[in-house]
Structure formats: C-alpha cells, structure tokens
C-alpha cells in the first residue's frame, strides 16, 4: 500500500513537469497553430535563469589566503562574494541559499521577453507555412539556443540546490498512520507539485474568467471571425506566447533543485512532452494536463521491481506503449478536437 502511495506521489511529481511543458506547448499550438519544437529549449533556458542568478549572486573577488595553498602549491585564492561585503557573511549566505526561489522573479521578465522576441522575430513569419517548416525552423532554433547555453555554461550538469530550509523530507507515513519513515517525500518535490498546480490553475482561471482570456479562447476557436470583429487578435496571441514561455521557464527554474540542469535537458523533455500533448489531444489544455499526470503515474508504476520482473524493459517503453494504445482507441487522444492537425 505504502509503495503504491509513494509511486503515485512520484507520478504526480513527474507529471507536473510534463504537464507544465505540455500546457505551454498546447497554448502555443492552440492560439498560434504553431508546432513549437523550441519549447523544450525554453524550459532549459528557464533552468539556466536560476543558474545565472546564482552565478550573479556569487559574483566574487579573489582574496589571497597565504596560509593555504592551491593544487599547484601557490597561495590559495579564495573567492569572496560581493554580497559578503555588502550584507556580511550570514545575510549573504542566506541570500545565496535562496537563489532558486529568487530566480522566479528574475525568470518571469526574462522568459516573457524571450517569448515576445521569438514570436515577433521568427514564429510570426511561419503562421501560414506548413507544419513541417515550423517544426524545422523551431528545431533549428532549439539547437541554436542549447548550443549557446553550452558555449557559456559547458556540457556538465550544474548543481543548483534548494534553500537548505527545504532540503529535508516530509513524513507522510506518520500522518496517515503507517510506520514512520515508510512514506517520506522531499519537501522540494512537494513544493514543485503544488507550484505546478497553482500555475496550471492560474492559466485556466486567466483564460476562463478574464475578458482577455475569453477573447483568446474565441480566437482559438475561430481566429478569422474574432479578427473581423475588430479585435487585434495578433497582439493577444503574442502575449499568450509570452505567457507560455514564462510557464515553461518557471517549470525549468523550479526543476533545478530536483535535477542539476544541463544544456540538453530541454531535448530530453521535448519528445516526451510531445507525446503528452498528443495523447492529451492536440489543442486541448485539460487534455495536456491530464495526459501529463497520467503518463507520469504510469511511468512510475512501470519502474517498480515487481513489474520489471514480470515484464523486463517495460520501464523503457511504457510511455510509448500507452501512447500507442490510447491513440488507437481514442483517435484524437484523450480530449482532442476533430480536425486539428489531422492533415
């Protein structure tokens, strides 16, 4: 029982990342009709916003420590962050410790700006082009973006820990009446799940309950008619692109303490998120979220030793297998609309 609860938690957690990326992909696809292969790269750039901010916070000057030596036998140069000079060591350390949460504030404007720039500078010219062209150009962009990141940050993963206040784990077992220590879950993963839930809720509320959202939804359903009503739909769609980029970026920022970011993390997620979007049904926001969590949970269950003993290798293929089964039984994925991306 406790094993199953834990795997569900794992699945929800993994699903949150899938769902956030898939949500952004679907927003862009639903509004602009563009298949954005660079969306994984946006997730990656978000993660590197956190890396960049922690680099900025730890900007240092060198102080020579005569008592110690470095690996060549020269006096050791110790890096002292400027923050220490400004706030003193304790406050400075505390700020550096909180780099990841702080970078949320840093990432939003950066990601929205990148989103705008991408849409105005490149994607705009591809609305009328075939999907294959869109895929190719955004794929090219994804390569360029990740190579730029690799040029500046190298290929290795970069550790970006969560604030030390959140590094422990929470004991669900004791709360639910199991043995203490049998169901524990890291704080940061719980935070990630709640964060994802809030973001997803906010995007839905924004689309559902604001005038802006209403217009966008109308535009998704019938772009031409909305345009004929004299509404500048392009401008709103650009803003939606910015929002989608910010959602991907925030998903990336918050993901950094879970796994150290590296330059190809976007590509690692890209294919899976596409599967998620398609399984959810092209153009359906609830479908994307639902499929994200569903595939996350199934993937977690497939990784259990008992399952692997009966079906070796199932953990390698479960997502694709489920995708095939769903697409064969439900022609447009879980909640897809008819006629979208079917030709």
């Amino acid at each position, binding site marked *: 029982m406790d094993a199953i609860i834990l795997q569900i938690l794992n699945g929800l957690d993994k699903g949150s990342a899938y769902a956030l990326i898939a949500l952004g992909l679907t927003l862009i696809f639903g509004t602009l009709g563009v298949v954005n292969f660079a969306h994984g790269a946006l997730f990656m750039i978000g993660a590197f916003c956190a890396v960049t901010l922690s680099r900025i916070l730890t900007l240092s000057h060198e102080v020579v420590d005569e008592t110690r030596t470095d690996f060549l036998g020269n006096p050791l140069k110790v890096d002292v962050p400027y923050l220490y000079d400004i706030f003193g060591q304790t406050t400075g350390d505390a700020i550096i410790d909180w780099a990841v949460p702080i970078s949320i504030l840093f990432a939003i404007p950066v990601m929205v700006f990148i989103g705008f720039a991408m849409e105005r500078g490149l994607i705009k010219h591809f609305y009328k082009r075939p999907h*294959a062209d869109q895929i*190719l150009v955004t794929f090219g962009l994804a*390569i*360029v973006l990740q190579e730029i990141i690799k040029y500046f940050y190298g290929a290795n993963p970069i550790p970006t820990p969560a604030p030390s206040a959140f590094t422990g784990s929470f004991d669900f077992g004791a709360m639910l009446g199991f043995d203490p220590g049998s169901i524990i879950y890291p704080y940061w993963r719980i935070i990630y799940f709640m964060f994802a839930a809030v973001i997803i809720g906010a995007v839905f509320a924004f689309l559902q309950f604001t005038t802006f959202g209403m217009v966008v939804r109308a535009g998704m359903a019938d772009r031409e008619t909305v345009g004929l009503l004299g509404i500048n739909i392009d401008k709103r769609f650009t803003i939606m692109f910015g929002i989608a980029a910010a959602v991907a970026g925030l998903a990336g920022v918050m993901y950094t303490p879970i796994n150290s970011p590296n330059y190809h993390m976007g590509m690692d997620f890209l294919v899976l998120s596409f599967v998620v979007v398609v399984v959810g049904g092209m153009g359906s926001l609830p479908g994307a979220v639902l499929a994200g969590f569903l595939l996350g949970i199934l993937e977690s269950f497939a990784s259990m030793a008992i399952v692997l003993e009966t079906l070796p290798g199932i953990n*390698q293929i479960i997502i*694709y297998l489920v995708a*095939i089964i769903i*697409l064969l039984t439900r022609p447009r994925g879980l909640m897809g609309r008819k006629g979208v991306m079917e030709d």
Partner: protein
Amino acid sequence: MGLTKKDFTLLIIVAVLCLFAPFILNPFPEGSAMAQFNAGYPDLMQRLVIFGIFAIGFNILFGLTGYLSFGHAAFLGVGSYAAIWMMKLLTMNVIPAIIVSVAVAGLFSLLVGWISLRRSGIYFSILTLAFAQMSYSLAYSVLTPITGGETGLQPKYTDPRILDGDLPPGETPRANLFGLDMKDSTQITMGDWVFTFNAGYYVAAVVMLVAFYVSIRIFRSPFGMMLRAVKSNQQRLNYTGLNSKPYTLAAFVISGMYAGLAGGLLVAMDTQVGAERMFWTASGEVVLMTILGGAGTLIGPVLGAGFIKYFENIISKINESILHQWFAFMPDGIEDFLVSMVYPFIGKGWHLTLGIVFMLVVIFLPGGLVEGGQRVARLFKRRKPSSDKPDGKTTPAE
C-alpha cells in the same frame, strides 16, 4: 527506360556526378589549407550516397503523401541488425546481407505502417515516433543478447559464417562482394591532387542510382499520382469511393524498405551496428535532410542528405590549431580576434552552425536547397530566356 527526356537527363546527371564524385568532392590540392574541406575519402562518400538512399525513400512517403513519419530510423536500424546477423551467421558477402535487410525492414514497416496509418497528421507522427523509440530503448537494454546493446555488433573471427570457409588465423572478416573487398581503394595522383576510388563507394553508388531510378518511376507512375492525391486532399479521395489506405501503406512499406536498404549498405560499408542508429534524433535527421533539400522533389533529399553529412563530418573536425594556420598570415592581434570569432562555430560548435543553417534555409528558401537552385537558374534564365532548364533539378550535388 520509360522516362521522359527531362527525367532521363536528371538521371544521367546524377549518374555522372556519382561516377566522378571522387574528383568533384576533392577540389582542393593535398596539403593546402583548403584540403580540410575535401570530402573525397571513401567513408564520407559512402555515407553521402547511403543517406541519399535513406532520404529518397523517406521522400516517397513524406514528399508524395505528406505523411510525416518520425520513426524511420527504426527501419534503418532493423535493416542494419539483419545485415550484420547475416554476416555473422552466413557469409561476409554483402548481397545476402542487403537482401535480408530490405526484407526485414519491409516486414517491420508493414507492421508499423499498418498500425500507424490508422491515424493521420501529428497522431501518425507520434505513433511512428513511439515505435522507433521503443525499438531503440529495447535494443539498447533488454535486447542486448541480440543487438549487442551499448557496444553494438561487429563481425568477429569466431562467428560461424557457414557459407564462408574458415578464415586464415588472425585475419579480420571483411565485407566483400564475391571477393571484391568493400574497403579496396585505388588512388590516382595528379600533380598535387590525390583522388581515391573505393570499391565500396561504387557499389553503394550503383545501388543509389537504381534506388533513384525506381523513385523517379514511382513519382511518374499512376501510383505516384494517387499518393499525391492523398496529400492534396485525402477526404475528397475517400468521397470518390477510393480506399487510400492500401496506397499509403504501400508507400510506407516502400520507404521502409529504402531505409532497410540504407541500413544494410551501412553495414556492408562499415561492419558494425549500434542502437543509437534508431534514436529519435536519427529519425529527425532524415526529416531534416528531406525538407532541407526540398521535400517532394526528386533530387532534393539527396542534396539535403549530402549537405548534413558533409557538415557533420567536415566542420566538426576543424579545430583551433587549424584556424590558427588559416589566419596565420594576419598580424597576431587580428589573427587571435578572427580565431575567437570563428571558433564557436566550428569543431565542437558544429551543431550551432548546423542549427543556424537550418533556420536560414527554412526562412529564406521554403522549398529547400532545390528552390535555391531554381532561383539561381531563374537568374540565368532571365538573361537567356530561351534555355529551358528542368526546374533547377540540375543543381549539382556538392
């Protein structure tokens, strides 16, 4: 040969290009700074034509029917595994290996196509992607006893090979065509130029020409027309009472067999298989080749394949010290500046350059390299209105 004059000219041009590729691809004299850009060595020439075959096959599906398969590398991989097993069990002669690789890839694509073609559009793409990713994951891990997993398969001295006699002790098994070693090369030196003629390359080139000829025939046949009809409006086609599924499935299987053929040839030229051959990026690569060259055109995919493989093999090998040699004639400061400007784009940065080129081509040449050729051709046409070039298809391969 059942070709129109235009198509025949095109075929002849491609044949001539293939025949003289060792000269065309080696334009720079040995030892000069530009020799870095020479591509006329056996391995790359083989790869250019083999991936050309792969792309031609992919184009039969994508270019004609518009069905975008994202899992074609799986057929190439399956073909390769079939071929290497033939070489391990039967004989090092490439003929059985190639035949079996085409057959196995055909069967596998029949299965995948039969299932995937129940859906269209992006749903179809994801289904093919899912099959390919499953093949890759399993081949890399649990199927290790059959596929060799991470370390792949290579022919070994100890393999049974029932048709071949025992190898002399210590001799490495070599792929051959009735005794003609695929690695056999002859060189001709002309002044500073060295040209290499490789047996394997010419075998692959002949196969490529046959594949190209078959592709022209398919393009011009009623069957090809039917496939184009699927692309332009499948619904209307269905309303006329025609079931398009057998046609698309046939196209799918044919292109799967082309991929298997390419896979078999890869093994024939370089006797090893690794599972990475089936990773989704490999499937993506053939999509890029086709679109980059010009989807739906005859020669486009071959150009695209050549372009990408050239980049991968040539640009990635330029390193910093070579750059310093190039700019050595400049004053020191300018030299360092130029090197630091160019450095991010070459060597380990070759992916960056490739990404930029993709974007530029897609943005400015929607029809791919073929459109580029057409534009150039049109420029000349304006000056000489009488010349009637066949749609820029005469653009020479690099």
